[in-house]
């Protein structure tokens, strides 16, 4: 029990609940079921992107290009749907994913096979992809009345009372949990992140793994691109501008170590949820809009500080341990 309480994820989950309760006490509407449902729906895109980013960060990498990939694939799927309204929705979604995958694989090739620094590569592709959104759309908006109705309706339509967004995010979480914990691919990523040189010595095909990791990140961003555009019913060059830092912040809050090698699916999910709660709560509790950014900054710093504290392993224990009273009581209880 104590172990579980000590876990970062548990602490984060508790703080999310406390936060929701606090906001709820100031603004009871916030804890209404529809509001919470909306919060959940709102957090899905961030959570999915945070999951993909988690895998990348676990390999000691970083993907700054997610937001641009999202924008590009979102814009392309919107253009596609406008141009060919009769195209079935699954095809549009698959195309969005494929575009994202392709863009991610470009990152993956440069980082994996050419062994270039992830932050530099994705910084470069970030601006290239964003520029391409403009080039492809000619700078024009794609707005709601142009898009086919089912294109727009899908993310928020409900299945068994829950929005499709939540279903998709839920299955993404499951898939990532499987990848991270039960697939060789995922475990290799942890190995690479822990000790890249050692990973080579045990024969992990590092380049290939990185290639596909960034591919996955891109594919998720691609899917989110469609979902984003459909959800807000508008596509323009600057969608999700600056969102990459929010995604990274979610991972970091979720305890994914930027130094690589550690990070859990639960952490990434909770980190995303945490930021979503903040983002949804601030407008509701009527904090002055001018304070929002500063508060978000403070919250990120605080979460990171607390994370660092709980994750700190003190010096090594060389001296023989003596059973002290507190411990004895703890074990007796």
């Amino acid at each position: 029990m104590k172990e579980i309480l000590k876990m970062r994820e548990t602490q984060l989950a508790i703080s999310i609940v406390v936060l929701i309760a606090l906001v709820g006490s100031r603004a009871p509407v916030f804890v209404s079921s529809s509001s919470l449902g909306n919060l959940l729906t709102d957090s899905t895109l961030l959570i999915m992107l945070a999951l993909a980013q988690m895998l990348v960060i676990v390999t000691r990498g970083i993907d700054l290009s997610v937001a641009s990939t999202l924008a590009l694939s979102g814009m392309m799927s919107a253009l596609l749907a406008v141009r060919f309204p009769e195209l079935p929705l699954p095809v549009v979604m698959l195309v969005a994913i494929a575009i994202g995958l392709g863009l991610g694989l470009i990152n993956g090739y440069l980082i994996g096979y050419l062994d270039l620094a992830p932050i530099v590569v994705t910084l470069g592709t970030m601006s290239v992809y964003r520029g391409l959104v403009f080039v492809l759309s000619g700078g024009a908006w794609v707005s709601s009345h142009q898009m086919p109705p089912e294109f727009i309706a899908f993310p928020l339509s409900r299945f068994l009372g829950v929005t499709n967004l939540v279903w998709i995010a839920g299955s993404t979480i499951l898939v990532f949990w499987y990848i991270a914990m039960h697939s060789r691919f995922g475990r290799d990523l942890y190995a690479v992140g822990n000790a890249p040189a050692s990973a080579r010595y045990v024969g992990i095909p590092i380049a290939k793994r990185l290639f596909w990791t960034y591919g996955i990140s891109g594919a998720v961003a691609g899917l989110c691109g469609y979902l984003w555009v459909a959800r807000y019913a508008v596509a323009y060059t600057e969608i999700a501008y600056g969102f990459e830092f929010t995604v990274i912040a979610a991972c970091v809050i979720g305890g994914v170590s930027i130094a690589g090698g550690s990070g859990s699916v639960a952490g990434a999910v909770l980190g995303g949820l945490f930021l979503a709660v903040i983002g949804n709560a601030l407008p509701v509790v009527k904090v002055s809009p001018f304070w929002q950014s500063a508060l978000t900054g403070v919250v990120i710093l605080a979460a990171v500080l607390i994370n660092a504290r709980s994750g700190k392993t003190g010096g090594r224990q060389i001296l023989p341990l003596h059973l002290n009273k507190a411990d004895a009581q703890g074990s007796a209880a």
Partner: protein
Amino acid sequence: MDMNTTPVLQLTGICKRFAGIVALNNVALSVRAGEVMALIGENGAGKSTLVKTLTGIYRPDEGTIELAGQPVRFANAQDAMQAGVTAVHQETVMFDELTVAENIYVGRQPCRGASGRIDWSKIEAEAEKLFERLEVALPVRARVKDLSVAQRHFVEIARALSQDARVVILDEPTASLSQREIRELYRIIRQLRDAGTAVIFISHKFDEIYEVADRYTVLRDGQFIAEGALADITEQELVALMVGRTVKQAYPKADVTPGEVLLSVENLCHPTEFDNVSFELRRGEILGFYGLVGAGRSEVMQALFGLSTQVRGNVRLDGKPVCVTCAADAIKHGIAYVPEDRQHQGAHLTLPILQNITLPILSKVGFFLRGRRAEENKIARHFAEQLELKAAYLTQNVSELSGGNQQKVVLGKWLATNPKVIILDEPTKGIDIGSKAAVHRFIGELVSKGLSVILVSSELPEVMGLADRIVVMHQGRIEHTFNRGEATPEMIVSAASGNELAEDCA
């Protein structure tokens, strides 16, 4: 032994070049099943490079590798493993955040059926079985970051043995093990040999080589020199083959009588790492610190050098209390600490040799370094030559040197600070016999110049041969202090194990 069987592993004409450096030149090697082959050579002779070539990490530029008569090519480490060639490398190959069991099977986890799902229970069961076979007790679910250095080493050995290997290579496996653990290792090696595995054993310690190996192969400067049975050759002859000349191997205790007390440490305490450490160091004295790996010697020394926080206690230098809160203080007071982990704590691998050596004394060279190049070169060359550093030029990056030569650069760096007290933490770990003698000679010179040396070493002969007094530590406390010639090896080892060879209780 049957000399007629075809070798399991046969190398011919192996060449490997790095940018501008020929690491292996026409090397040949052959090992048979059920035999332990010692691979011997100075630092930088190319032993580790050969190992990496054999295990698919490097691809040879020329030459062939034959496995049981069949020519093979390894594209990566996994290929080699599958073909039955496994190795414990000189560098630690460990994944801190993963569990012991996963560390053993990382990269080739057994999967369940078509789903490709990792079979965790099988991994853990296999790991348990492996440790049972090795007769070492290790918790398979513990994270590796919580293990001691020696325990980690056994995880690596377990990894090498987890695949039914035809050839097992051990690259300096004993460098960070204590006597007891080394004996464990010997037992494992014999077990392997008796099971018909070919073992290649790399070490700079001749007692070990004679103890476990059957045959030897000598490399020098990347070239094959000789091969034969160890029974037919004396240590002297081997050394001569290795270095191309004869080296007097002894522990030259400099004839210096220790003077007045220079450094005195009283009640040095740390909340978790050590407790109540008191000792005195005299001018011109060599004080040996012996203990098992993990006894806390390095921690004490790092505390003395100002690298730890939370330390209490009194330190006096020349009778005056000194307060050392950072390494710069220590250097100013004339204390130098040569750390044991040269890759992480010692060397700046991608900086030139020159900059490595002058780093701690930069302020003495001057604030503006423009135009001081000649001065810097002089200092660096002086120490490089004294330590017989093998390098092409002073601006070469340290990463391009062999392990032992990197160690020499670190040593040189600290000698350059012109210290009063020099703390050497495992100074000869992984150093070849010729250079080791040079280091020992150098330690002798240091004390005869009036320096005081604290020598932390896990090599009993070294401590006994060099030290005026020996402090033995166990679990963060000083167990006993022996004067020179007062103790037998047995007494020291038993003190290091906590007198009654008690099992660790932590």
